[in-house]
């Protein structure tokens, strides 16, 4: 069988004639941020002189450095230094402006080796990272204004919008795409890719209506085949039928990426409320699924052509949570009208199979005392029709268990989490210990261990098992 990893599918983008260079735009944004950062102490001095400090600029941020080494041989997997400066301005009756940038330097180059990340086509206009060499990247993470119009609230700009109740596993949390740079072992905040969006919240009696418009065509950011966390399992890679093309010639077409304003944008609607002790929400999202599906065809020259495309789906779901004594029950479910999968069936004309999908998660959080949390989740995805000739199971079940405990007035937090797949008999174990040495200084130690079948979602990364240590300074 011929096998292509997901990263091989990421190809050059279509040229966008009507848009200015996003690199220039990103650099201008970053420059503004730096200038405003410098302006803060100056503004403070002016304020002290009594001239006034109209925008009340605030600059803060974090500087962190994390080392991770392979469990197998102790060699270095990453040693990144990350600066996240944040600027906020008070716009008076106009609201508040917030901007968060990120500068990351990782000279080890095992997570995104060479220039692989530069060539990624998954990011949309105005959402691309800027690279300095192969080891440094700059990103405008968030850039938005908050405006209150009476009781109506608007956040416009680059932001994260989070739906759902699940931890670590995504059912309703579909608005922002994800980065797979470190699969799921980096923190959630870093994995989620903020997108340019409009988020409107309108309270009406006891119900709040949220309307979301996402004109940013950014999708999941996969990594190249030579990256440490590249998907290698057949279940998560494209597998072509045996003898798909007699000549053996295969051409990978450029990604057919949605690029039309409005007609290709994502839209969401959420109603939420609090009744009889229940927090609830009903969610609808009309969006492009964040990973492309690969269409195949054999042309007149007997060449197999593979065309990656993003496909749209309607998602309808709901979530709820309520405590019962020391236990909080929470859950969410989502039905996707169409999910697209590659099939190895030779008879299939385009190699793509579509079916509805139901996903849900039920979680219990138990607080035996004020310092300890025991949290467990069952996560299940059910395909309404089996995918012919695919390794994908019709029912996919995952369990998670997290135990965390705080010590010494919350200055020390120890946490253990295991996520295990029922089908693949594989999983991942994360152990974390953090110590708040001072208000501005935190030390963290961790172990991330993948185990089980190498064909499984988690087991395929067993070679990446690692220990880590990090220091984070807040200012």
């Amino acid at each position: 069988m011929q096998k292509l990893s997901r990263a091989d599918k990421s190809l050059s983008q279509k040229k966008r004639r009507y848009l200015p260079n996003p690199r220039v735009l990103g650099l201008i944004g970053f420059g503004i941020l730096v200038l405003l950062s410098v302006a803060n102490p100056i503004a403070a001095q002016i304020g002290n002189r009594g001239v006034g400090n109209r925008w009340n600029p605030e600059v803060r941020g974090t500087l962190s450095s994390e080392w991770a080494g392979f469990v197998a041989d102790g060699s270095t997997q990453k040693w990144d230094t990350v600066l996240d400066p944040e600027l906020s301005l008070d716009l008076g009756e106009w609201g508040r402006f917030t901007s968060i940038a990120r500068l990351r330097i990782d000279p080890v180059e095992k997570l995104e080796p060479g220039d692989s990340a530069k060539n990624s086509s998954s990011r949309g206009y105005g959402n691309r990272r800027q690279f300095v060499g192969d080891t440094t990247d700059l990103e405008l993470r968030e850039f938005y204004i908050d405006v209150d119009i009476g009781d109506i609230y608007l956040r416009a700009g680059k932001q994260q919008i989070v739906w759902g109740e699940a931890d670590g596993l995504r059912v309703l949390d579909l608005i922002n795409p994800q980065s797979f740079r470190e699969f799921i072992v980096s923190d959630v905040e870093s994995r989620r890719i903020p997108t340019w969006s409009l988020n409107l919240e309108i309270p009406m009696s006891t119900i709040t209506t949220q309307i979301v418009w996402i004109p940013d065509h950014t999708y999941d950011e996969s990594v190249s085949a030579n990256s440490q966390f590249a998907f290698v399992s057949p279940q998560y890679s494209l597998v072509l039928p045996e003898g798909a093309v007699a000549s053996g010639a295969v051409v990978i077409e450029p990604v057919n990426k949605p690029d039309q304003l409005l007609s290709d944008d994502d839209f969401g609607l959420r109603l939420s409320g609090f009744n009889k002790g229940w927090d609830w929400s009903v969610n609808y999202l009309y969006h492009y699924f964040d990973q492309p599906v690969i269409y195949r065809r054999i042309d007149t020259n007997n060449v197999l052509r593979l065309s990656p495309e993003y496909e749209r789906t309607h998602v309808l779901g709901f979530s709820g949570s309520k405590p019962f004594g020391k236990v909080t029950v929470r859950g969410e479910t989502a039905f996707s009208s169409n999910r697209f999968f590659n099939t190895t069936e030779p008879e299939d004309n385009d190699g793509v199979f579509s079916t509805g999908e139901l996903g849900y998660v039920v979680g219990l959080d138990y607080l035996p005392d004020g310092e300890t949390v025991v949290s467990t989740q069952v996560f299940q995805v059910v395909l309404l029709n089996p995918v012919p000739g695919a390794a994908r199971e019709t029912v996919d079940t995952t369990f998670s268990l997290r135990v965390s405990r705080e010590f010494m007035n919350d200055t020390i937090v120890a946490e253990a989490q295991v996520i295990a797949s029922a089908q693949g008999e594989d999983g991942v174990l994360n152990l974390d210990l953090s110590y708040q040495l001072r208000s501005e200084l935190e030390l963290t130690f961790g172990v991330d261990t993948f185990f089980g079948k190498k064909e499984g979602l988690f087991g395929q990364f067993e070679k990446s098992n690692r220990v880590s240590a990090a220091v984070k300074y807040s200012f």
Partner: protein
Amino acid sequence: MKKLNVKRTIMTLGLCLLPVTLLAEDASTMSGLDIMQMVDQREDGEHVTRRFKIQLTDKSGVTREQDTIGYRKYIGDVKKNILFYTEPTNVRGTGFLTFDYDETSKDDDRWLYLPALRKVRRIAASDRGAYFLGTDFTYEDISNEQKVTLSDYQFNATGKVSVDGVEVIVVEGIPMDESVSKELGYSRVVWHVDPKGWMSLLTRFYDINGTHLKTAKLEEIQEIDGILTATKIHIENHKTLHQTRLIFREVDYKTPIANSLFKQNRLKRGL
């Protein structure tokens, strides 16, 4: 039209009348329950906005400081509180919302927003004796704001002593039963109530084994907008030798607070 909170109005009227009654009799003739009822009915305003600094000092003397802004409002029979951490950066954006119900059999509702997760999490509220976000105050201590849930204890006035030159009435409270004791984490609480303002200037807490666990002291009391307000509170845990000091400023009982502030969605936005 503003709804009239009948229960609170009756309580306020009662407070206005009671001191007159009490002047006529010696406060020392009051029972422990009478005294703690006065403490519980002390005027604390229909709503309040305040900033407060949390100083956390460990046994080696290292102090961490956190700044917050909090709002509290009685809406119907529910006391609603929302709190946002503003400093330092590592906790900034953390938000905490509580609904405290008059009905004692009904657990409070609590939500916590952690910026790192970008999610509002529902928290079980049955464990009232759990410590509040790294401080030496329990959720119950924080929620009651120097008051007491009367149905939790049997009270007994044991005499008068002097605290920092102020004559106070000593009231001992024993939890009603074992389950309340376990829930609160106390086997006994001793209040030192100043009958002039009906505040406990000094409170000693004993753990479920009877060991002296904590001592809370009101270090500063001010009259703000006509309401007696503890503006500096210190508490020390004698087991861990950890201390917490709350320093209140910009306390405002007058500026109206919109009901819409006390919503789960608001936690995500911060201030």
